C-alpha cells in the first residue's frame, strides 16, 4: 500500500519549545511534500524533498529526507503560536497522491 504514517498524532507545547514530527512508510518515495493546514482552509505547501539525506530549511523549520527515502522529519525551532496547525506529509506516485493522517500541533502562548 501507499500508507504514510505520521507521529505524533497530537502535540501541544509552549511557545519557544522545539519539536519534531515524523512521516514514515515501508516503501521508497521518489519525493515527499510537507503541507500545513489551518482549520477551515486548504493545505499550503511548505517544501518538497527529493534526494535521500536532503535537508531543507525554511526559517525556523528544518525538513529532512531519510537516506533510504522511506522517512522524513520536520523540526521546528522555537515554536510560535502562528505555527499551530495540522502538518501533513504526502507522496506522489504518477498521477496519484497519498497523504499521511497528520500531526495536529498546538503552540500555546
Amino acid at each position: 500500500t501507499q500508507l504514510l504514517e505520521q507521529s505524533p498524532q497530537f502535540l501541544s507545547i509552549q511557545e519557544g519549545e522545539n519539536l519534531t514530527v515524523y512521516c514514515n512508510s515501508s516503501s521508497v518515495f521518489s519525493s515527499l511534500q510537507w503541507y500545513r493546514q489551518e482549520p477551515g482552509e486548504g493545505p499550503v505547501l511548505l517544501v518538497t524533498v527529493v534526494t535521500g539525506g536532503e535537508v531543507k530549511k525554511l526559517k525556523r523549520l528544518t525538513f529532512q529526507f531519510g537516506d533510504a527515502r522511506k522517512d522524513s522529519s520536520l523540526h521546528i525551532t522555537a515554536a510560535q503560536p502562528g505555527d499551530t496547525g495540522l502538518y501533513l506529509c504526502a507522496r506522489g506516485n504518477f498521477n496519484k497522491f497519498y497523504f499521511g493522517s497528520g500531526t495536529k500541533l498546538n503552540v500555546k502562548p
Partner: protein
Amino acid sequence: SQTIHQWPATLVQPVGSPLSLECTVEGTSNPNLYWYRQAAGRGLQLLFYSVGIGQISSEVPQNLSASRPQDRQFILSSKKLLLSDSGFYLCAWIPLAGGSYEQYFGPGTRLTVT
C-alpha cells in the same frame, strides 16, 4: 498567477438529496485536477483525479462521481447523499508540465449531511 476557486464554501444538505460542488482554476492550462475528502483534523482521502477533459479516475468506490466538462473545471456530484458523505471537500491542481508533485489547494467546501 494561478488561483483556484471552490464553491459553495459551506453546504448543509439532507440525506438523499443531490450534490454538486464546483472547482475552477485560473491562470494555467491542462492541469491535473483532484478531489479529496477530509475528516475533521485528519489526512486527505483522494476521491477522484483527472488528467484532461472528460478523463476521470476514481480512487474510492462510493456514491460520488466527478466530471471535467472544461479544461479548468472539475465537478463533484452525487445523486443521493449519505450521512457518511459529510466532510471537508478539497479541490487541488498540479501543473501538467514538469512532473511536479506539488499540489495547490482550493479553500474547500464544508458539507454537512443531516
